């Protein structure tokens, strides 16, 4: 082990760490702007229009500059260490999970054999940091938000894992690169790409369940219970301001992208081009992969500005009474399909 660590080139480590970080940071700036534009367009408004010229594209940069300059306020009665640590831990959790995402046919941070397992395990730390932030703030709204997030974790994690399991039943691998490579080619009905969503009708059901549970996992409307503005001020973020709050925001958007990319990898062929060999180099594969992920992110935004928020008990009911039985039945059906065909 020590021998292995000594052999690692530090520059290579830096490059491998910097690539997903750059992607996350650029994406977060674009996505926050895009979210506001989507909200504006859906409500027949225009959204930010003034900063930077064309359609206010520099709005998030201006916001970021403002947040950096703000005073770092820590409540007097808070638990100082946990309060300061929670946002960074939250970002670290979602950032660490990007290591196993195959961004392109020639780039993956860490090509390990337990990719999906690692990803799901690391993202649950996110909830831990939310509880940490909620508890450390010493504020009733924050605590309620943290508690809700814990209740949410036990609800959505089971259907998520069950649906990921259905994919693993089909692919027989936990490595996300292998899963993606298995989906290349256009063989279904002669022209459709070999994506898992087209391979098996039960995987479509699995995708729907998976999408609902990743909405809950990334704390998006209609499952944004930990930070529901209308009831809990801002939930676990209530006492945070300035750069620490920006870290929460960044982590939230990074999580959204992470889970969308996971969905794209598991069900939509990852970096595979929809046209077979056409447009399929390392760069194009990155393009297709991000396009698929960002489309799912857009659907998440679209849902956010369409649906109202569920109550905590309704979320529990949906996850425990409907999604969990459905996903387990689905798992059995997918396994049967694999055995028969």
């Amino acid at each position, binding site marked *: 082990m020590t021998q292995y660590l000594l052999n690692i080139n530090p520059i290579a480590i830096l490059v491998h760490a910097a690539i997903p970080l750059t992607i996350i940071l650029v994406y977060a700036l674009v996505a926050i702007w895009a979210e506001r534009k989507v909200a504006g367009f859906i409500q027949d*408004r225009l959204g930010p*229009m003034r900063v930077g010229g064309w359609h206010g594209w520099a709005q998030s940069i201006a916001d970021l500059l403002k947040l950096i300059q703000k005073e770092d306020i820590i409540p007097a009665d808070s638990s100082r260490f946990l309060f300061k640590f929670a946002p960074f831990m939250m970002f670290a959790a979602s950032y660490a999970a990007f290591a196993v995402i195959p961004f392109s046919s020639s780039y993956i941070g860490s090509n390990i054999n337990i990719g999906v397992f690692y990803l799901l395990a690391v993202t649950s730390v996110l909830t831990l940091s939310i509880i940490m932030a909620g508890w450390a703030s010493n504020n009733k709204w924050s605590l309620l938000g943290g508690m809700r997030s814990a209740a949410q974790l036990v609800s959505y994690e089971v259907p998520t894992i069950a649906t990921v399991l259905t994919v693993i039943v089909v692919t027989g691998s936990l490595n996300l690169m292998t899963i993606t490579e298995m989906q290349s080619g256009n063989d279904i009905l002669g022209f459709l790409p070999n994506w898992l969503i087209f391979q098996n009708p039960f995987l479509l059901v699995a995708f729907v369940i998976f999408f609902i549970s990743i909405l809950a996992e990334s704390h998006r409307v209609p499952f944004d219970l930990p930070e529901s503005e209308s009831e809990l001020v801002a939930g676990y973020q209530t006492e945070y301001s300035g750069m620490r709050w920006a870290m929460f925001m960044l982590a939230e958007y990074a999580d959204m992208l992470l889970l969308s990319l996971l969905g794209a990898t598991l069900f939509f062929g990852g970096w595979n081009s929809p046209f077979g060999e056409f447009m399929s180099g390392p760069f194009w594969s990155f393009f297709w992969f991000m396009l698929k992920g960002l489309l799912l992110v857009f659907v998440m935004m*679209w849902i956010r500005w*369409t649906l109202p928020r569920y109550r905590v008990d309704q979320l529990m009911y949906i996850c425990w*009474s409907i999604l969990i039985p459905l996903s387990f039945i689905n798992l059995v059906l997918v396994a049967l399909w694999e055995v028969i065909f």
Partner: protein
Amino acid sequence: MVEAFKNSWITFKSIFIGMGITIRHFFGKSVTLQYPDERPVLPNNARAKLYVNIDDCIGCNLCARACPVNCIYIDTVPSTSDVDLGKTSTGNPKRFWLTRFDIDMAKCMYCDLCVHPCPTNCIYMVSEYEYSEFNRTNLIYHFSNLEPAMVAEVKEKAANEAAEKQRQREEMMRKKAEEAKMKQIEAKKQAEEKNDGEKGSEPSKKENGDS
């Protein structure tokens, strides 16, 4: 179980209906007017600010009386006989100097009630709406175009004329009173003269009355 599936199906269907509506709005036209760059086209009768065409004002005070919040302040001085203030564009003769015609737009409630009583249509609403101020006193609009010196002069002249008129009237009164007195005296004199002529008959009457 069946009920749960039914409910799930209804939920699913309504989610897609809702998302269909939002995507229609997503691609639809926005209603936002980017204010400083674009401005709304206001109708002709928009009530945004009061304006007074002071050349047509005859100082009749009807608008100030109609105002429900008393935001119109009018002071008038009657014109002296040596100047002719002319006529308004509607043909009404002007008989007053308007030493003060102030409208406090901070108080105004845009009810339009002052506009209709005006006999010469000189007070009306205009559609200019960008007149916010940092100091509230700047919202008091002064429409009178008389210079302070002119106001003083006009006031003095009017006061002089009024005093002169008063004096004339008093003179006339005095004259009249004098005339009346003279008449009385004359009448008395005449009566006395008559009495002198008829002195003989009078005491006999008295005697008659006593008996």
